[in-house]
């Protein structure tokens, strides 16, 4: 089967941290509706895999564990896990590089970001993992931060306002084991205009509208 890798572990059990998170999550749903917890529980499973193996993915046995927790048929969890791109059904690298290539990012140079990713990691095609096992490269749709396009999402963090060289710098830093501060990489603050503020320069409360 194409979506299932053949390196599935044969055992998965939620650890103590996960069990705590699951208790919090399931408290939000009435007991007969706890199937709704499928998405958050899959995240719990994926995060636990990241903690335990360094690779954030959900093996079939983990989906089975989620199904048991939610008392639904395993296939119902397989359906959810394969539907959403956020869940990796195959092992991935330590860092998941997710390049947004939707319109805003593309217009602002996501092609450069993508090729910089490939160059810095040695990955040839989207979806592959680098030889050193550090990076997996994915192409994703709009991440909803168009004001700071182009964006590269590393695991759960946004690195914004990228260009080719800054992307390479970022990846080199990750390779060295550093983890730069997420957010805009061109020095601007949040989503403020590039080069400083252009409007509303007067002091507030001047009275002249």
């Amino acid at each position, binding site marked *: *089967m194409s979506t299932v890798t053949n390196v599935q572990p044969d055992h998965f059990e939620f650890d103590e941290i996960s069990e705590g998170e699951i208790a919090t999550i399931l408290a939000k749903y009435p007991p007969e509706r706890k199937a709704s917890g499928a998405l958050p529980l899959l995240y719990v499973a994926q995060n636990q895999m990241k903690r335990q193996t360094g690779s954030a993915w959900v093996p079939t046995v983990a989906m089975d564990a989620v199904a048991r927790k939610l008392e639904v048929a395993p*296939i*119902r969890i*397989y359906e959810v896990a*394969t539907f959403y791109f956020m869940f990796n059904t195959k092992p991935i690298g330590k860092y998941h590089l997710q390049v947004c290539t939707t319109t805003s990012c593309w217009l602002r140079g996501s092609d450069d970001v993508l090729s910089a990713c490939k160059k810095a990691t040695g990955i040839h095609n989207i979806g592959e993992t680098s030889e050193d096992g550090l990076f997996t490269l994915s192409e994703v749709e709009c991440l909803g931060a168009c004001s700071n396009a182009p964006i590269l999402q590393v695991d759960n963090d946004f690195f914004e306002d990228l260009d080719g060289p800054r992307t390479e710098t970022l990846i080199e830093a990750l390779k060295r084991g550093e983890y730069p501060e997420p957010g805009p990489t061109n020095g601007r603050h949040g989503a403020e205009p590039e080069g400083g503020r252009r409007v509303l320069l007067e002091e507030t409360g001047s009275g002249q509208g």
Partner: protein
Amino acid sequence: MVRVIVDGTPVDVAPGSSALQACEAAGKEIPRFCYHERLSVAGNCRMCLVEVARAPKPVASCGFPVNEGMQIFTDTETVRKARRAVMEFLLINHPLDCPICDQGGECDLQDQAYGYGSGISRYHEEKRAVTDKNLGPLVKTVMTRCIQCTRCVRFSAEVAGTPELGGISRGENLEITTYVEKALTSELSGNLIDICPVGALTSKPSAFQARPWELRKTDAIDVMDAVGTNIQIQARGGEVKRIVPRVNDEVNEEWLSDKGRFSVDGLKRRRLDRPWVRVHGKLHPASWQDAFVAIAKRLEGVQGSRIGAIVGDLCDAESIMALRDLMWSLGSLNLDCRQDGAKYDLSDRSRYTFVSGIVGIDEADAILVVGANPRLDAPVLNARIRKRYLSLGRGGLPIGVIGTLSSDPTWAYEDLGSNPVSVNGLLSGNVEFVEKLKAAKKPMIIVGQEALTREDSGAILKACRALAESVGALTDGWNGLNILHTAASRVAALDLGFVPRNGGRSLRGMLSSGVDVLWLLGADEFSVNAISPETFVIYQGHHGDAGAARADVILPGSAYTEKSGTWVNTEGRIQRSFQAVFPPGEAKEDWKIIRAASEVLGAKLPYDTIEALRERLQLGVSSAAGETAEEPGVDTIQAKPLLASSRSYYLTNPISRSSPTMVECAEVYAPSVAVAAE
């Protein structure tokens, strides 16, 4: 009722009906793929689009509820264009390999493309291809043909109760699969083939065997269990190619068990196609005349009380009656139809049938199962229990089980222990479940063969009756004490009094040198080795199974597809089936064989035609009515657990044991059943 206007014609439909149902009530045909009356509404194929007055765009009629005064248009230019467009989209990724597709000729996609499609395609890009899935020995998949209607997903989750199929990935990559490669574990999986509107799921055993238009179709009754499923036998030439269910809402709705559908290939293997006579310890082929003479010679001077007869599980009522009459006229009362040694209360017919009827399950609001495995004993009936269980919502139908379930029954239940002593516990109020039975308006108790084939069966039955009385299961309008049979011939045989009465010997009595001559009518399900070596055994039947191996004379009979017969199902419903093909070789219809033998034996039966025989056929009443049951057995319930039958669901009779498909199923599913029971 709600009045809606379909194409100008007013129709009244029940509130909550869908626009599609209203259109059908008005006699308008609405094309559809994903919608199926017996499954939940998915609304994803969009083929059933209609126009509704004041709606801004066409609506999917299957999921659109009716309103008072709603105006529906099913034949406007917009609707026609919408259908053409939907059809074009559905065909984008469909391979159009109809010439090599088994569904060809009975394909919804084919028919509707012809009826509602545009006739041309504007799609010149590449089509997608999907890898085929291995769903086990019964269902063949060609997943590229799949149009993702999800009927199979809903069927396996809702009707079969084995949610193993699902749609994984999304959009262009959506695939119907079990995800982890495994065979479907349902005993109803063959119905996926029927509900699949395209050629994605087809029959694996009958792949590339015949085209639907070449098959001659005959109505018949399934004999693989005691449900009496209405089937249609489809044959080409002299060979039964396949068996499909007919719709009968009171019996099987439109489902058929896998054993009933797929054991057809057993009908052409290991057949007895000529008489055989044992000479000097070896069976030799013989003519009918020789065989009858051999029997007549052996019977010479034998007292009637030293002759016995046993009927098997697959016999039609006609041959059972003919054999009974022959035995009577030979002066024998040694008759038995209970190969498994079951004990019944024959004083009234309502005491040995599923008396509430199978439709009674639709009204039951609490169920107690005693010594039965409904999922394996009667898969189609079990689907009915599941339907009721689902319709009452979570916890709405309390089900208690006394006994051992060999697999997940597909409904939630309260385990009341495997020991039948629990029935006494319920009676005395020590087991809490009794409160749920008492609270129910129509409580139902289902007693299965595992409870009836014990020393203490009489006591269990008595306790169940007392329990039924105390919880209100036996009132004027409701009789909820049901017997679930597994043998198709059993109720007919009981109706006809094919049991040892007035001092006759039972099966056990006949085996240990109780008789000198034993006539087996298709009886293979008891230990034939226990027949005393001196006994002269006449085996009349259609398959070379256990009985034939022990026989001194073999009379080749006909299988259920090869004769017109009357069958009585577990609820006592009398049904007629028709002859689809001729029996092989020199084999004959069973009642004719007995009629011919009677003449040679000097005890000529008074009927020459099947019509004359049927005039005397008295079904529907217990001919043992008023008599007390023989062999009282142990009169208190023993503290021995009720054990599930060890035989495989797929191999319960000579036909299924001869079927390579069923043998393969038994191998494939043997371990998975154990897993499901965990």
